[in-house]
């Protein structure tokens, strides 16, 4: 583990400090260039920004905490937790400070955005299998670390997986995490239901959703990883068109989503012969309707012609076991044959596999002449109340 410190204090003299940088809580140090996305409803906004003193592009996230009441604690907890985790595949907070009523968080820029962005913008029918192998390996490393530190992540999904310019995947979304270490003890299971996670329900494990006495533990994240594997492969998140009750019923009964390819969705080919695979009987992709309706009548549809390796199918099945006891742990899964594919097939690095998507790097942004950039949004001033008291 490297000892590089990304706090505001000066780096220790012997640290490697490639990207070591001091981010000060000063409005004038940052130029906001464009909005990259939103989070937490409309409370949080993520911007592509430019740190003027160091001339580096960064991600600047702002929470307008004057818009919220009680959730402020969630934001505080997320930042504090993130500051106490340090792993190359876990999102990092380089600095956090308050500017007016905005809690501002500075993080390294993730040049490829989230995997959800990649799926939405270019890979609508899913990412290439080798790209998924790279990405999920990184995320498993993140989960292994988080689990060993005694947390359950509870929100593994494509939108919480970010990819940087080097093609390293990073796990974010830590505000949903919960501790397994409580009252000075390592709990075998926890029962708390994440209150703010309505949007994450489709990815959550059956045992978490059931909310029964057995509770759940870090194995719940492995199920979510399986759902995410399907999401990355299929382009669409499983259960997307399901009402929550149906989604819950299916998960509890043990119907698991699958990777869509010629072995799992022969009905799209509509030829009705050979591939009537045994798995099909119970396999429910959860996206049948939506895919069927826009995959216009199917001949040549890549979903029915492509074929994922057995390694990948097996990996997803392992993650999606109904009984958490049967799911391997993150560290066990890291040895899975699915992750040996890139080397065996001599695959190029991830950025090339994501071609033609271009990462937001300094060069692409043309930041050599950053002065030309217009400031799109300075931290706005608000008007004052005019009423005067008489003391």
């Amino acid at each position, binding site marked *: *583990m490297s*000892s590089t*410190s990304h*706090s*505001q*204090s000066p780096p220790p003299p012997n640290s490697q400090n490639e990207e070591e940088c001091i981010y000060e*809580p000063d409005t004038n140090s940052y130029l906001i260039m464009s909005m990259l996305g939103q989070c937490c409803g409309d409370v949080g906004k993520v911007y592509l920004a430019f740190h003027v003193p160091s001339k580096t592009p960064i991600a600047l996230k702002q929470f307008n*905490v*004057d818009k919220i*009441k009680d959730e*402020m604690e969630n934001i*505080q907890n997320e*930042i*504090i937790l993130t*500051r*106490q985790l*340090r792993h190359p595949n876990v999102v990092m*907070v380089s*600095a*956090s*400070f*308050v500017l*007016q*009523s905005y*809690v*501002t*968080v500075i993080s390294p820029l993730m040049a490829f955005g989230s995997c959800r962005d990649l799926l939405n913008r270019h890979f609508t029918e899913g990412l290439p299998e080798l790209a998924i192998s790279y990405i999920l390996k990184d995320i498993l490393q993140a989960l292994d670390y988080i689990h060993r*530190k005694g947390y359950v992540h509870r929100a593994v999904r494509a939108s919480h997986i970010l990819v940087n310019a080097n093609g390293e995947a990073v796990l974010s979304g830590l505000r949903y995490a919960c501790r397994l*270490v409580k*009252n*000075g*003890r*390592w709990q075998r299971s926890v029962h708390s239901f994440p209150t703010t996670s309505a949007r994450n329900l489709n990815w959550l494990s059956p045992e978490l959703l059931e909310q029964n006495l057995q509770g759940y533990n870090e194995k719940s994240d492995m199920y979510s990883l399986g759902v995410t594997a399907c999401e990355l492969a299929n382009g669409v998140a499983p259960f997307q068109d399901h009402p929550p009750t149906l989604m819950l019923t299916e998960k509890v009964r043990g119907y698991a989503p699958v990777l869509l390819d010629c072995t799992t969705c022969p009905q799209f080919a509509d030829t009705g012969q050979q591939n009537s695979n045994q798995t099909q009987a119970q396999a429910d992709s959860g996206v049948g309707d939506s895919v069927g309706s826009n995959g216009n009548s199917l001949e040549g549809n890549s979903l029915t012609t492509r074929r994922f390796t057995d390694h990948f199918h097996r990996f997803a099945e392992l993650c999606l076991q109904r009984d958490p006891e049967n799911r391997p*742990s993150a560290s066990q899964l890291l040895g899975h044959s699915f992750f040996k594919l890139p080397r065996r097939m001599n695959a190029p690095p991830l950025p090339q596999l994501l071609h033609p998507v271009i990462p937001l790097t300094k060069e692409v942004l043309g930041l050599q002449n950053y002065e030309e950039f217009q400031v799109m949004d300075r931290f706005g001033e*608000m*008007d*004052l*109340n005019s*009423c005067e*008291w*008489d*003391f």
Partner: protein
Amino acid sequence: MPLFGKSQKSPAEVVKALKEAVSALERGDKKAEKAQEDVSKNLLLMKNMLYGTSDAEPQTDIMVAQLAQELYNSNLLLLLIQNLNRIDFEGKKDVAQVFNNILRRQIGTRSPTVEYICTKPEILFTLMRGYEQQEIALNCGTMLRECARYEALAKIMLYSDDFFNFFRYVEVSTFDIASDAFSTFKELLTRHKLLCAEFLELNYDKVFSHYQRLLNSENYVTRRQSLKLLGELLLDRHNFTVMTRYISNPDNLKLMMNMLKEKSRNIQFEAFHVFKVFVANPNKPKPILEILLRNQDKLVEFLTRFHTDRSEDEQFNDEKAYLIKQIKELKPLPDH
């Protein structure tokens, strides 16, 4: 003797090895790298004894008792905390986990670690000063809040000179550290009601002159959080004496009236909950009454228009209606 794996170190051996390694780290001689490694290794051993791992249960009570006894005798807890900044990133968290586990140890109704720390208050002072250092602030925070659960330890912290540094810590520019310090600060001022009330009464002037600074802070989050906490403190019946004193001071009323019309709606709302106490006071001192009378019409109009969109918040609307009625009915004191 275990059949597989290395034979296990006894608690005494782990404590001894860890103490030697931390001392070496403190001396900072050329073996520092080796020392760092030994610190991490032994901390992990100790943590696993207390918490167990994914495939091993925690150690038996006897082993834990031995470990605790060795920790007290060797003074290792203080040594670890004093050298926390020298321990690597993950090791710092292991120290906090070991500390928090040992702290919770109970024998019947006794808490031996709490008793031990009472005799070594330096542990608490060192932890409090941990907020001065970015790299260890959050680790110290988790340990401090665990300590604050025990009245005896909270008392030592409240009555120490270091306590007043919290007014500075909660306002530092790094948001995560300021937030963490604030939750420790709040815990100390609210957890043990009688202790807190007595502390606030005895130190009223000092506490509230410091508190004034927080309410006027440039930092939005500090201002909002401290205002909210002020409301909670004043409305807690244990703090009746403190509340009476607070609402007799016209400067406090002026501050709240100004905060009522701050641009931030959340701050306006929190200020309302302090302002209402001034108005509801049946025995308003003359200066308070005079300010309210001088602004009688303005206040009625202001409050009528104040947060009218909170129609679903019944309690708020009842309170607002009550305040408007009270202010309308205000009469000057008869001249004697």
